[in-house]
């Protein structure tokens, strides 16, 4: 994640250099470091512990130069080194299901999966939470820019973005400041790039008021034989920096950010805001793809967090092992930058390539064609050292692996919070929370929920996103998952990929282990509902402070739950991102693991939509319904209650449900399918009715899985997992139900597509117009006045 730091920190960097004002160069050098071992260095201000600093001295056998100190501090920061999360993330590799589809696993800029026809798809979700709180538009915009560069770096053309978002209460004044800016920023950057926005989430909860979550996912496609990696092999190969000039943006951001927390009056350490230049990035995309097509690079890395520090160390560490760089050759936007600042700058829209000498000319020619500034900074060596010069003086001489791969690893203490038992004991029983008792109250509850901020129609936001550009968006906003045809890499193909993201923080708060599994299960279900076969997973783990044992326990549990579930569902985690310190003052956010699932569909013409499109078609409910309201939308919206246990997880059931939905789509049995999640059966049916412009007559199931009587309230609003509602032509009903029965998937006829109203038989009727008004009004009412003019 790229962001800034307080001036305080850059000043401290100046301090160290000022120590040397008397000597020849006004900046610190390796020679000076050897000559003056006892100079006090501001490692603490740079977010380093004493032990970490001493370890650097031990590695180097001397004190670091201030440039080296800057590099270690940022590379060993939580954000770059994953020092607190590493021990838990390992499970994703250790428990990973064996699948031939995985071409590149965690560790690279993004994972890559084989989707057939010689094509490979790469995707990843990342967070840009803190910058988006400080400056919503630019924070969100640069978040999109960063993840798109990660995907581009793998050699792929970006073909879709998604934006899972979390905000405080919808009616809170600060949400009115943050949300319109974030939405405009996601759109402003993505639209200008020409990458379609194919999905995301907008969820409100008080726990995000001082710390919104802005996650961004990007997916790209390439030929499987064209994967690019971040490595710098081959002594003599040139190291070329290209794209935007380097400015003072986000200096020391990554490391300072990792220790930044917010209180009521804003961020304790306010980052210097970075402004993105989406036009520059668009040109960079076309320039890179042309360079890849002509096979002009042996390695490439984008400049994100820790900028030049990260790109040079990671390229060198993964290559022959050495690199010589003339740092003062980097084109600067601000000529007053010190070498330390140039190393830590997180200016956007920059890339670094490793190019064979014979191909440099061709490389530069492509850059010239696209008006992209490109500068050779140095070359690959086999010295095993990363060395940098500034105006002739050696300022950096380090073993790159010690920065990139041998950072500190912490086994932070964690323990199940004392309050966890009480929270789980506080179940939403009928005694605890009053439930609607009659038809009138059920009807009112339905209208209240479809108009609640979390369940209301989000078109006000989604219309600000271009979901059509590139012409391959088969399913976009309002569907269970986004679905894009892979035409960009193989013109004329019918192959497509589907993507969905989910992550219910309330469920994870009640039980982080199953909460993470439910996030995966829902995204998996959303993908299968469109007819695509789930293949692989990316995740963005948004948590509070890792120094808090409660949070660390939530994190450990969520990782364990996600890894176990990925194994059982056969979908490996290919990459992701961890965001800690999401808290306001001392209050941590709900643990929020956002999970993205990627699926593949051989023939995009076979995709299933969520809309009820044809009168008279049969509605079937798949799966079991139980009295499960812990963490439900109903408990949240109507009673502001959070307690009990989340819905039961049954991954075997999710798998069967997925198989049935995929087979139904492939064999043309399904006219529509919609997963049941937030708001239960009622919400799903309302969404499918409004989308298709047809009403429905519902006959609610009268018994639950165990054959116990099921009251209408539970049937309508329970959030039991592993369920979906489908519409089938009468001619297909028998074939489809037989298939369900054969596979042991509970199936119940719950009604028929009919008329211009939603009628719940024996209970109530609501005209579609009334439903539509209740569903679509809230967002415009809440945010329609906002003035975001970037």
């Amino acid at each position, binding site marked *: 994640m790229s962001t800034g730091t307080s001036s305080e920190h850059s000043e401290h960097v100046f301090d160290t250099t000022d120590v040397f004002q008397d000597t020849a160069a006004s900046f610190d050098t390796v020679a000076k470091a050897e000559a003056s071992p006892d100079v006090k260095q501001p490692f603490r201000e740079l977010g380093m512990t004493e032990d970490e600093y001493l370890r650097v001295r031990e590695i180097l056998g001397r004190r670091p130069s201030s440039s080296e100190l800057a590099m270690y501090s940022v590379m060993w920061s939580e954000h770059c080194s994953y020092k607190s999360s590493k021990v838990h993330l390992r499970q994703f590799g250790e428990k990973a299901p064996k699948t031939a589809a995985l071409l590149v696993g965690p560790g690279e800029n993004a994972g890559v999966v084989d989707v057939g026809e010689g094509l490979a798809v790469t995707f990843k979700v990342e967070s840009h939470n803190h910058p988006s709180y400080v400056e919503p538009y630019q924070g969100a915009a640069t978040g999109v820019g960063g993840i798109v560069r990660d995907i581009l770096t793998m050699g792929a053309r970006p073909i879709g973005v998604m934006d899972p978002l979390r905000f405080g209460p919808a009616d809170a004044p600060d949400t009115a400041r943050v949300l319109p800016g974030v939405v*405009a920023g996601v*759109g*402003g950057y993505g*639209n*200008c*790039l*020409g990458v379609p926005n194919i999905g995301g989430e907008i969820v409100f909860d008080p726990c995000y008021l001082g710390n919104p979550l802005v996650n961004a996912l990007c997916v790209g496609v390439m030929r499987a034989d064209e994967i690019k990696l971040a490595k710098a092999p081959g002594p003599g190969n040139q190291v070329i920096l290209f794209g935007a000039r380097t400015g003072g943006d986000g200096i020391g951001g990554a490391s300072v950010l990792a220790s930044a927390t917010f209180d009521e009056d804003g961020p304790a350490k306010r980052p210097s805001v970075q402004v993105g*230049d*989406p*036009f*520059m990035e*668009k*040109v960079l995309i076309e320039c890179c793809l042309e360079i890849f097509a002509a096979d002009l690079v042996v390695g490439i890395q984008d400049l994100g967090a820790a900028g030049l520090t990260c790109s040079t160390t990671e390229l060198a560490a993964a290559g022959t092992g050495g690199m010589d760089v003339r740092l003062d050759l980097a084109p600067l936007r601000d000529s007053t930058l010190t070498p330390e600042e140039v190393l830590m700058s997180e200016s956007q829209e920059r890339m670094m390539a490793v190019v064979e000498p014979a191909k440099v000319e061709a490389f530069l020619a492509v850059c010239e064609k*696209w*008006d992209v500034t490109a500068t050779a900074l140095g070359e690959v060596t086999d010295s095993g050292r990363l060395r940098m010069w500034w105006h002739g003086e050696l300022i950096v001489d380090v073993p790159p692996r010690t920065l990139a791969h041998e950072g500190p690893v912490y086994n932070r203490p964690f323990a199940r919070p004392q309050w966890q038992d009480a929270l789980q004991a506080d179940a939403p029983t009928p005694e605890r929370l009053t439930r609607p008792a009659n038809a009138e109250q059920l009807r009112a509850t339905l209208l209240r929920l479809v108009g609640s901020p979390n369940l209301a129609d989000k078109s006000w936001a989604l*219309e*600000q*996103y*271009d*979901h*059509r*550009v*590139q*012409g*391959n*968006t*088969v399913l976009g906003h309002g569907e269970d998952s986004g679905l894009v*045809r892979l035409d960009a890499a193989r013109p004329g193909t019918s192959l497509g990929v589907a993507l969905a993201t989910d992550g219910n923080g309330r469920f994870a708060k009640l039980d982080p282990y199953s909460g993470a599994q439910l996030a995966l299960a829902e995204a998996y279900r959303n993908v299968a509902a469109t007819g695509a076969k789930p293949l692989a997973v990316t995740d963005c783990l948004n948590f509070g402070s890792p120094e808090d044992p409660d949070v660390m326990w939530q994190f450990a549990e969520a990782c364990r739950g996600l890894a176990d579930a990925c194994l059982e569902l056969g979908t490996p985690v290919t990459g992701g991102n961890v965001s800690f310190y999401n808290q306001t003052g001392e209050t941590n956010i709900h643990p929020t693991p956002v999970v993205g699932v990627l699926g593949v569909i051989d023939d*995009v*013409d076979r995709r299933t*939509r969520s*809309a009820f*499109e044809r009168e008279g078609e049969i509605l079937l409910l798949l799966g079991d319904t139980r009295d499960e309201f812990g963490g439900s939308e109903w408990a949240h919206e109507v009673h502001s209650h959070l307690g009990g246990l989340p819905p039961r997880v049954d991954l075997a059931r999710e798998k069967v449900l997925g198989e049935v939905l995929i087979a139904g789509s492939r064999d043309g049995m399904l006219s529509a399918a919609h997963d049941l999640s937030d708001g239960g059966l009622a919400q799903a049916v309302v969404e499918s009715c409004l989308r*298709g*412009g047809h009403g429905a007559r519902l006959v609610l199931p009268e018994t639950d899985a165990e054959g116990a009587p099921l009251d209408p309230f539970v049937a309508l609003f329970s959030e039991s997992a592993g369920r979906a509602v489908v519409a089938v032509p009468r001619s297909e009903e028998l074939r489809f139900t037989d298939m369900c029965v054969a596979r042991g998937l509970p199936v119940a006829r719950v009604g028929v597509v009919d008329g211009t109203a939603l009628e719940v038989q024996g209970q109530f009727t609501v005209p579609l117009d009334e439903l539509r008004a209740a569903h679509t009004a809230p967002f415009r009412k809440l945010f*329609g006045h906002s*003035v*975001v*003019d970037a």
Partner: protein
Amino acid sequence: MPARIGVVTFPGTLDDQQALRAAAAVGAEPVKLWHRDKNLHQVDAVVLPGGFSYGDYLRAGAIARFSPVMDPIIDAARDGLPVLGICNGFQVLCEAHLLEGAMIRNGDLHFINRDVKLRIENNRTVWTSDYEAGAEAVIPIKNMDGRFVADERTLDALEAEGRVLARYTANPNGAARDIAGISNAAGNVVGLMPHPEYAIDDLTGPYPGPGTDGLPFFTSILKSLVSA
């Protein structure tokens, strides 16, 4: 030999590939034109596609208008070469004064991506001859600065000369007199804010359909070129 339809790519152009796809879909030969080209490679018609040329910084289309390729296009357009400017392309044509008026920020200041219904008011141009007069078409808009403005005199003239090509049936952005597209006096130069090239098949076109209401723009030009 099929008619050659050239599609210009400026830095920041986004919809060039889709315009090429639409040209191919109706059987024309799609030809890529680069903003630095000094000649038009014998194309029979030109599409200036949508996107954010030069980021739409300064004003939409303002910088692209000065690209080398615009000189031959402006000359040829004055001599009757069929030119269709879509979205950003429309903005470029206005900046180049091949069409009157200008585009400003949408009424609510937001980017709007929506399928809108158009009424085709002028089917006497080479780009719209395949539409019935007064036909309605569902075509997506996706723009930030899509609001057409001009002084009253110009607007009256456009109306009087029947040069209002298409109107929104429900004005999405406050465009003057619901104008979605106009043509020059000769009818060979046409500017349109909505994107017909994104309404050429039911799989990716507007939902719920029809998904192909944009095709006539491309069949029209093809016919007029073949018969010419």
